[in-house]
């Protein structure tokens, strides 16, 4: 029930993000979701793309450091309290969110959020027990 996310190390200097998108574009890869975390020196770009392997290869060939992480895509009811409810369940079971961001597309009436948990397996079990809809990678990449 995982979604594979790739992450790229970026120095804080102009044109680096543009360079990543250019490499992906030239490799014919579509970005499905992305989030950028930044500090004063560097940034970490997290990406969900339609072809992880192709994207990794293209970026590595251009000299970028690329990582691979399992994240979880969860359908979040698109109404007040939708996200709050999910976070509450996780918090009560001491599962922490390292970071999260939104997926571009909706799933029916629901929003899709990408979560990076400190304990991915525990989080998936918990979400399933609570009947929350998790979107598998194979489905998400082509959504």
């Amino acid at each position: 029930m995982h979604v594979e996310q790739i992450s790229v190390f970026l120095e804080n200097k102009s044109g680096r993000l543009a360079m990543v998108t250019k490499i992906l574009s030239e490799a014919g890869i579509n970005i499905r979701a992305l989030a950028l975390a930044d500090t004063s020196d560097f940034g970490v770009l997290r990406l969900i793309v339609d072809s992880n392997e192709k994207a990794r290869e293209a970026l590595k060939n251009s000299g970028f450091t690329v990582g691979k992480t399992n994240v979880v895509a969860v359908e979040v009811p698109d109404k007040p309290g939708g996200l709050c409810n999910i976070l509450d369940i996780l918090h009560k079971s001491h599962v922490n969110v390292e970071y999260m961001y939104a997926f571009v597309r909706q799933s029916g009436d629901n929003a899709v959020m990408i979560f990076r948990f400190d304990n991915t397996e525990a989080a998936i079990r918990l979400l399933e027990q609570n009947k929350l809809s998790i979107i598998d990678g194979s489905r998400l990449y082509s959504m």
Partner: protein
Amino acid sequence: MIYDIEYETMPREAMEAIQFRRLRSTLDRVCATVPFYRKKFQEAGITPGDIRSLEDLRKVPFTTKQDLRDNYPFGMFAVPMDNVVRIHASSGTTGQPTVVGYTARDVNTWAVLMARSLAAGGAGRGDIIHNAYGYGLFTGGLGVHYGAEKMGASVIPVSGGNTKRQIIIMKDFGPTIITATPSYTLHLAEVAEEMGVSFKDLKFRFGIFGAEPWSEKMREEIEKKLGLTAVDIYGLSEVIGPGVAIECYEAKKGLHIAEDHFIPEIIHPETGEVLPYGESGELVFTSITKEAFPVIRYRTRDITSINPEPCICGRTLVRMEKVSGRSDDMLIIRGVNVFPSQIESVLMEMEGVEPHYQLLVDREGNLDNLTVMVEVGEDIFSDRVKPLQELEKNISKNIKETIGVSAKVKLVEPKTIARSEGKAVRVIDNRKI
């Protein structure tokens, strides 16, 4: 004032006679007591008896910092430990320092040399010396201290750091002489200004600055900002510590070498050939009075030249030009000697960190800043920011602990560190010295 009229103004011939006599007895002694030197002489196929003039010294092999490291800690000592009363050490690569020892007589020799130096820099009895060189294993603090006491001046052993308190002491105690690294001195001036204290209102007359390279421009700045006369002092712990050479305040043009204790030579850094007066090359010292830790043709790696012309101060001792650089890759950052290989070994000891790094040295205001740029490979990369920031912090902490210098660590993308002809450019020094 000249502290030691007899030696400091000795005619050349008399000086050379003393040097030769002392050299011969030193060579006899090191070959008898230090296995390292005995072996070196054997390998070169010479005995101390073959050295029949000062010129013959060039037949003797050089000693390098690596030789000192190979004999860590006490292998180069020429006296039994019973006779060693003091041990100092300087930081070294891979955490292995260079250790030097002193007999009671060596400590006295050093104190005399420092008293001479302080006198050449304008100090005398009745002066109060604000000594902001670090006290400890580093020879700066204690070197000045013993010299000050020897000449009968009052010394404030304030050491380095705690800058605000230093300003208050300067205001309240009224020191007339300051001894410190030039960069720390300018930092003191800045902090004083922030505290509303003007150096012009303090009582300083002279400053004796060293332990790091500094330029004529920096001298002008210090003299203007602090309202004093600034002279340069030279020394290294392997030779004895500060006091090996000193500028006189009368000329401020080159540093008089204590030739009655150390024979200087200038060599070509690559061929080892001895160069004539006036030519620029690597400075080499042979100690001729030291007991515990004599050094024979020790390569300092400092680049300078020697000027034998008479000086207006009356001293007949030759003068070395201000050190203009290094023949190795050593950096001096806030008075601390740093080799890129030291940083490399710190990085190599950290799991996953690749030895792709670059050192960037800048001077912000008057303080040196060291930035260590480290390439991020897959082993240390994380999708989370926190582990990367922790890595930066840990590298910085390890550098501080091993080398004693604060460094800012900056993670950079792979292959961003310029590689010229397959060899990485390790150091970018943007300081204008």
